[in-house]
């Protein structure tokens, strides 16, 4: 299959280039920005699997992310676990949470799923923000389980400071890049595997697929649960890298930001999440720096709306269409594959 080789080649080249970045004298600001980019790109790549590929309109991704992050923080804070140990455990707890959400939602379709998952995320937010019950006292200061608005902190980090000294941010960069690479590889495996075929069958002809024994519920639940693992890992890495996690990760503006990445990149396109995440981080940085800072959310909202109306297949979709048109025009070009890749 040519698609496989092309994707693998591009993927390895991008990975090698990104891994080589720290060898050059790059400002710490950009390393940190790229670390954030890797975390969001990981979340978006998994969201793209759930929404773009499997067609489940879930808005619970950031709730799953928050479960991963808070798990890590609480393990560090209350159980004194190393954050390295907390990393896989957070992923697994995120999977457990994802399964419950999936079981509750996946009997529904389309808009109902979006509503319920949005409600679940919002309720998690409300419960954290209104959490004021003291579970222990530090001197006379009351500490609650999640610390409400303030969020949790002081649960340690990955210990990169001991290994790299001043250049500890390179450790964070490497860790998030590794998670992103794993998550992207996983996303490609799903898209190109029999499971991906099942999704394509369910999307293109649900009646025939189901009569041949492809169970929609089973496959959707599987992808929901698997993607929750990497989303939880990303949440855990977020908590470890920033050494603080609060309810702000559940805010609507962040959800909108990530949704924009996915939509601008191209829903369901394998490379969409990476393209979209990179582009929107760039837009975001420009909007932040210039006098436009006040208009950041207005701008993002309008961009999102405009892209869906004007370019519904996103940038990756646009590139694909362009490539196909060029391939047709060239008489001795490669034969066109049958059906959508």
């Amino acid at each position, binding site marked *: 299959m040519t698609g496989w080789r092309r994707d693998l080649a591009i993927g390895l080249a991008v990975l090698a280039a990104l891994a080589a970045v720290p060898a050059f004298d790059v400002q710490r600001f950009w390393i940190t920005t790229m670390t954030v980019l890797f975390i969001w790109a990981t979340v978006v790549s998994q969201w793209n699997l759930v929404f773009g590929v499997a067609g489940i309109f879930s808005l619970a991704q950031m709730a799953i992310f928050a479960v991963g992050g808070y798990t890590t923080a609480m393990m560090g804070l209350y159980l004194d676990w190393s954050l390295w140990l907390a990393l896989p455990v957070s992923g697994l707890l995120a999977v457990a949470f994802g399964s419950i959400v999936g079981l509750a939602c996946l009997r529904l379709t389309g*808009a109902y799923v979006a509503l319920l998952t949005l409600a679940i995320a919002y309720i998690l937010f409300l419960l954290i923000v209104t959490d004021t019950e003291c579970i222990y006292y530090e001197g006379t200061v009351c500490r609650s389980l999640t610390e409400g608005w303030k969020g949790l902190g002081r649960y340690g980090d990955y210990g990169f400071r001991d290994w790299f000294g001043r250049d500890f941010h390179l450790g964070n960069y490497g860790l998030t890049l590794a998670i992103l690479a794993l998550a992207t590889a996983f996303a490609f495996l799903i898209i190109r595997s029999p499971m991906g075929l099942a999704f394509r069958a369910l999307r293109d002809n649900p009646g025939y697929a189901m009569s041949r024994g492809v169970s929609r519920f089973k496959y959707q639940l599987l992808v929901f649960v698997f993607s929750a693992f990497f989303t939880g890992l990303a949440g855990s890495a977020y908590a470890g890298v920033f050494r603080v996690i609060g309810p702000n990760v559940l805010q609507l503006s962040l959800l909108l930001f990530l949704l924009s990445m996915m939509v601008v990149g191209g829903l369901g396109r394998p490379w969409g999440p990476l393209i979209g995440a990179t582009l929107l981080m760039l837009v975001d940085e420009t909007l932040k720096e210039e006098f436009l800072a006040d208009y950041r959310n207005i701008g993002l909202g309008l961009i999102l709306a405009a892209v869906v109306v004007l370019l519904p297949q996103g940038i990756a979709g646009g590139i694909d269409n362009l490539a196909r048109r060029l391939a047709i025009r060239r008489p001795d070009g490669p034969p066109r594959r049958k059906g959508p890749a």
Partner: protein
Amino acid sequence: MEIFIQIVVSGLTLGAMYAVGTIGLSLVWGALRMLNMAHGVLIAIGGYFSYQAITHWGLPMPVALLVAMAAGAAMGALVYHCAARFMFRNEAFENNIFIVTFGLAIALENGILKVFGGYPLAQPFALQGGFRIMDVWVPWQNVLIVVVSVAVMTLMALFLAKTRGGRAIRATAQNRDAALLMGVPIGRVFAQVLAIAGLLAALSGVLLSSITTLSPQVGFDPMLKAFIICVIAGLGNVLGALYAAFMMGLFEAGVQFFLGVRYALPLMLLIVIAALIWRPYGVFGKRQVTRL
């Protein structure tokens, strides 16, 4: 007994406000198959226009209410003309319009934030005083809310049942293609429905902010509750939404009294999830058989 009356009074007030917001959402879903995420911001716009009209333009309260409703209707129509009209023929309309209205909502909400600031304001559309039933104090404001809501919903029901425009909306909701073939201008119907929903959202925004405060995010919580009510009733079922709204209002008032405000929404959601596993098409909804 007093506790019971107290719960019924605040439950009916909540229910009336929810009902006004919810039937708008339900109508939009029924006619367009569209989830309007800008609903929450329309609620806020209603509240702010009423504030602006009374405080800065010095208009009397009933006129301010009309101004707010007109603003909501205009914004609703704008959602149609800026976004929905380009998209409703598209196959992925249901998901796309959700994203688009989400984007518009965030943009508008931040627009309000820029104009009015984030500091909570007091809604001047309010009556002072009240009366007693046994030992329970009932503010006139709550009576006003219930009366206005019931009046508007009655007008709405008459419009849908008795007029040509109402019949066109019902026909479009029932079968879009058949309505189109019978000469119903569905584009105009869609714009109308969105304007009506905007009007109702703005109205519920004025009422809602009169017993809480006015802030740019004031609409999000009621929008989510309205969605939950719609899901319970079955999306697009207007009459079911009405029952469900009052049920939810009473339920919320009860939970708030016995368990605390914090648990009202989570418990509501748990019930919804249970209800959906039991009847995925809504408690009052009909099972829909789709042909492939």
